[in-house]
């Protein structure tokens, strides 16, 4: 049951990612990216990383994607015409992709032997642990974040302000 769900969300993540690359219109690619992020959030949730899943949905699929879509609107990006593809990408791209995937697989198998398999829902209660870290051990960095956000707000307004 859980494995079926894992494969469902993993397949939808990969499917949306491939669709992202295939689509010619930037807006369609952006929508596919939201699909990828939603699928990843479900995978995080299945592992028990509730906070990560919420961040993935609220910050990434919500706020960051709004910015992406607005950039597409702002630049008035239209349908992309396929340019002349380089011969290198055509013939070397796929073998190099498989090489990369094989290398990642080898590293993962070396790093995590089979008896260290991760179970679904293995890390419950992570949100409280993150809270404890954030509000006890890393108190000063947390307060500094607020100043960082303040700088970003002022920067955004100053940059978008029209010259008189």
């Amino acid at each position, binding site marked *: 049951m*859980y494995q079926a*769900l894992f494969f469902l969300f993993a397949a939808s993540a990969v499917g949306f990612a491939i669709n992202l690359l295939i689509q010619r219109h930037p807006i369609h690619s952006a929508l596919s990216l939201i699909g990828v992020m939603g699928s990843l959030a479900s995978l995080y*949730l*299945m592992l*028990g990383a509730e*906070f990560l899943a*919420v*961040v993935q949905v*609220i*910050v990434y699929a*919500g*706020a*960051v994607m*709004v*910015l992406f879509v*607005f*950039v597409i*609107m*702002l630049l*008035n990006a*239209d349908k992309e015409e396929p340019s002349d593809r380089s011969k290198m990408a055509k013939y070397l791209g796929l073998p190099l992709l498989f090489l990369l995937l094989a290398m990642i697989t080898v590293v993962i198998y070396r790093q995590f032997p089979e008896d260290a398999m991760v*179970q*679904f*829902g*293995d890390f*419950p209660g992570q*949100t*409280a642990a*993150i*809270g*404890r870290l*954030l*509000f*006890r051990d890393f*108190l000063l960095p*947390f*307060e500094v*974040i*607020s*100043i960082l*956000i*303040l700088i*970003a*707000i*002022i920067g*955004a*307004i100053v940059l*978008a*302000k*029209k010259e*008189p």
Partner: protein
Amino acid sequence: MPNYYIQSYIPILMLLAVVILLAVGMLVASYLLGQHRPTREKLTAYECGITPTGDARHRFSVKFYLVAMLFILFDVEVIFLYPWAVIFKELGIFGFVEMLLFLVIVLAGFAYLWKKGALDWTKADSGGL
């Protein structure tokens, strides 16, 4: 424990399934049941009942972008409230003061953008923005 954890999210999975089924079902049902007699009028974009003028793809004002950027920043601010709320009782009054300090600093940015009129939309009430 792990199984109990995942079971607590089954309602959301069911909701997801219902949403997908409903959306796909409505599209398929309208395709199968509806009659298809397209005319030129019917195929034009629907724009609140008025005859559409011009192209939908023109450049948008930078104001939209400013709103999006500010949205991200306040979104990031709000996400910190989530782990804080989970262990609020554990932290006690100390955690409350901590978060208050955080919020006051970020709200200073809010006061700044309010004063600058960054979210005022029309030319009349925006201070040179």
